[in-house]
């Protein structure tokens, strides 16, 4: 079977001003299979958000190619849905209208079937009774769920999430992790999940990519072989700490090498 997402020798430089260049990513190679849940961890500034911009087609890499379904990405496509770090909902729209916003933005209008589908999605994220409220009346975690529903409205095959829970407190964060897994099991998608948290990566993912500090590259691809469905008991699984340790070693080794 062909991989869904494929990075071939991808490097990216930012031209920050006329003379100065920032090498954000170098020689990235990996692939993601259908309905796989892949997490990316790495220190701040290693190029995770750059990776996201390349995968969503918002930018093209300076070298190499990003392929989705075997075709090179040249521009954004509806098959890719994005969940941002902050929920960034539109405060003047109701929760329901926020979920259908991508359709409104793309076509100028929203069909009534689409509204029904949006209601289904709100039910999926557990917010159907808040459909007609304004985002300001929702908690941070609830807003982020609306963000997830918004990313799903165009029925993407691939869901990209850039540290989606980092603005939440530790408790909501854990709950949202399990929520995300439940949603993912009900609506299987290929997921690329960017995070700072090693535990979150191990808990959620089938495979974790570890990135080195700038210039960022993938230094380790670690398959996580923990039973699904994952829940609170997964955290106590004997291999959980083992995987977390491996990841921690990889991340801090690089840091130590850098400091010498």
């Amino acid at each position: 079977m062909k991989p869904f997402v494929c990075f071939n020798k991808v490097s990216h430089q930012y031209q920050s001003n006329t003379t100065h260049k920032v090498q954000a990513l170098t020689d990235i190679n990996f692939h993601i299979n259908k309905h796989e849940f892949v997490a990316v961890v790495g220190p701040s500034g290693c190029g995770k958000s750059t990776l996201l911009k390349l995968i969503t087609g918002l930018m093209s890499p300076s070298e190499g190619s990003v392929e989705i379904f075997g075709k090179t990405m040249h521009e954004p496509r509806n098959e890719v849905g994005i969940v941002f770090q902050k929920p960034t909902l539109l405060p003047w729209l109701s929760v329901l209208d926020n979920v259908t916003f991508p359709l409104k933005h793309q076509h100028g209008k929203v069909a009534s079937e689409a509204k029904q589908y949006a209601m289904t999605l709100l039910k999926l994220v557990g917010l159907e009774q808040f459909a007609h409220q304004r985002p300001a009346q929702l908690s941070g975690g609830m807003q982020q769920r609306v963000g997830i529903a918004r990313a799903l409205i165009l029925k993407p095959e691939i869901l990209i999430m850039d540290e989606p829970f980092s603005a939440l407190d530790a408790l909501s964060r854990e709950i949202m992790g399990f929520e995300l897994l439940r949603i993912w099991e009900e609506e299987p998608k290929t997921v690329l999940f960017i995070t700072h948290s090693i535990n979150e990566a191990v808990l959620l993912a089938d495979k974790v990519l570890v990135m080195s500090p700038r210039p960022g590259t993938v230094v380790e691809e670690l398959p996580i072989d923990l039973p699904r469905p994952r829940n609170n008991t997964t955290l106590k699984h004997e291999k959980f700490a083992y995987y977390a340790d491996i990841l921690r070693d990889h991340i801090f080794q690089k840091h130590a090498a850098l400091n010498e």
Partner: protein
Amino acid sequence: MNKALHRYLPILALLALIPLWELICYLANVPNYILPRPSVIYDAFINVDKMRWLEHLWATVRVAVLGFLLSIFISLPLAVLMVQSSFLNRTLFPLLVIIQSTPVVAIAPLLIVILGAGEAPRLAITCLITFFPIVVSTTTGMLSTPSELIDLSRSLKGSVFRQIWQIRFPFAIPHIFSGLKVGITLAIIGAVISEFVAAEKGLGYFVQFSTSYFKIPQAFAALLFLSIISLLLFQTIRWIQAIFFAWSLPAEEQK
């Protein structure tokens, strides 16, 4: 009851100043040409025909409101252009600052030479004085749109028009209303300045006319009218925001 009191307390406090004013002027024997007492101002107000008041009032409100609307029609598209093109932003902004910092009183006579003696120069002067805060607040608001939403728009391949109309512009609404609130009070100032320079009616003209005949209490009556108009117009902007854009008010004002 408590809530109503809370609401009307500022007005009551203002009204309470009137007897105080009367008393102080009476006790200190302040001459009318320096600070007339409220009762004297009231007499002066009664002495002028109601139709004349209405005529002057209407002339000023008309110039202020039309000039203000005109400046909105100019400012909003200008702000959109400046947000879309950093070149325009960099060239137009210094120009706007220059226009804003040139005293309008100095340009007013020129405008009358250029635009003739009708209503046009008065509208132009009002517009000139009000449009700067509106442009600045609108551009600031549009540029403060979270970059994630612009990324979202790009990932959806939304047109530039929809990016402005569905995302940037609504995001700027709270800022735009701050600009409008500053703008509307300036509009009254603009109208009065324009009437000082060239007019045969309007409250500004009436103030000047009254003082030149030493009818100070009459001028004060006109001044009070001007303050009341300013307050009412300002309040109208707040009402419009509260009725149509309630979401854009800070949480404690949404009640």
